[in-house]
């Protein structure tokens, strides 16, 4: 097979892609071996392919990915977000309702202090407290204001049963445990009110 320059130019692209049959390939190569013009066409084409095929040939604009993902996020995550948001809102509503119910229940069930003049405890010591039989207050055992026999219960239990903290010993106990007077602020005004009465 004998090929002309025109044949080479028509087939050169397929040739560099390896997409010609063996007989044509051989004929093309025989021609190329002795034709400088066709050689320069082939070399130039190979270089075009090499240069444009370089990964760095086209660079993406700066900030392309963040912008793309920012725009996609609205759509891709939108509906699943709303489903999540729905779940969250249901959860929040539920929690609010539950806490409202609980608050109401607590309000209803918080025992009134046995002593009308005492303020209920707002903060409780993490310890056992002493309740004097027949009394209305709970004390740190050994409090000089306790008299008579007593039994030990947790502070929580004492409050539940309507006992109020002793303004003297319990205040000191909480203060020495690093907790200060706010727990007893109410009592001060309460006792003030008592005095006025």
């Amino acid at each position: 097979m004998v090929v002309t320059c025109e044949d080479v130019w028509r087939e050169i692209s397929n040739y560099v892609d390896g997409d010609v049959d063996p007989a044509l390939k051989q004929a093309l190569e025989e021609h190329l071996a002795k034709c400088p013009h066709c050689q320069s066409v082939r070399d130039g084409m190979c270089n075009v392919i090499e240069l444009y095929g370089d990964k760095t040939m086209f660079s993406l604009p700066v900030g392309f990915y963040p912008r793309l993902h920012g725009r996609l996020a609205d759509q891709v995550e939108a509906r699943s977000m709303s489903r999540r948001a729905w779940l969250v809102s249901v959860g929040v509503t539920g929690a609010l309702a539950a806490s409202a119910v609980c608050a109401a229940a607590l309000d209803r069930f918080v025992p009134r202090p046995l002593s009308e003049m005492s303020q209920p405890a707002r903060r409780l010591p993490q310890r056992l407290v002493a309740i004097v039989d027949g009394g209305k207050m709970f004390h740190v055992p050994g409090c000089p204001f306790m008299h008579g026999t007593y039994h030990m219960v947790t502070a929580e239990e004492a409050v539940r049963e309507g006992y109020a903290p002793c303004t003297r010993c319990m205040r000191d106990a909480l203060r020495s445990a690093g907790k200060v007077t706010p727990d007893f602020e109410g009592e001060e005004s309460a006792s003030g009110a008592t005095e006025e009465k």
Partner: protein
Amino acid sequence: MTLAPRSDPGHEQEAALIGRIQSGERELFYELIQPYERRVFVIAFTILRNEADAEDVAQDAFLKAFKYLAQFRSESRFSTWLIQVAINEARQRQRKGHPEIMRPITDQENEDGTYTPRDFTDWREIPSEALERKEIREKLVAALGSLAQKYREVFVLRDVEHMSIEDTAQALGISAGAVKTRLLRARLMLRDLLSPGLDGIWTPNSRIPKGTKPWS
């Protein structure tokens, strides 16, 4: 012989990924498109020849692909379908208000006519400048941009994005024969356009070592 697309994850893997996205794991869409993000931008840029428009169109194409993922038929390759979406988006944008005002200077020939490559036997006598990589790239982008769109599209999908002849044909909606003809013309024109300006690069010394390139 056709080149296998380099960045394609396995077809089945991709189909599985698409299935999971369709059944609710929407965040996996990012994983699905990740290998083609650059390709979508490049084809949009090739058609529109403007970075800002290309980026916008690329974003639109991904959004559209996400929206219509349910319509994707897994007999075809996801990447090809995605590129089709991008090409359609870019062409639409072009029609809407960014028509090609200037006729490309190299668009005078008809596809079946023969093209005579210029004879550059005296290139090496042109004083050569030390070309920085960036300057070369600018020349390459400008040369490509001066080709007619039908050549740009085929050339970029084949020689920049290394898509196979079949995938290129499918993405552009043309025959494999048309891909080959346009590719030949694009490569010859680019060689002619670039040769004088890239003197020194075209010499036999810069020949690509055999065995390292897909065509060798």
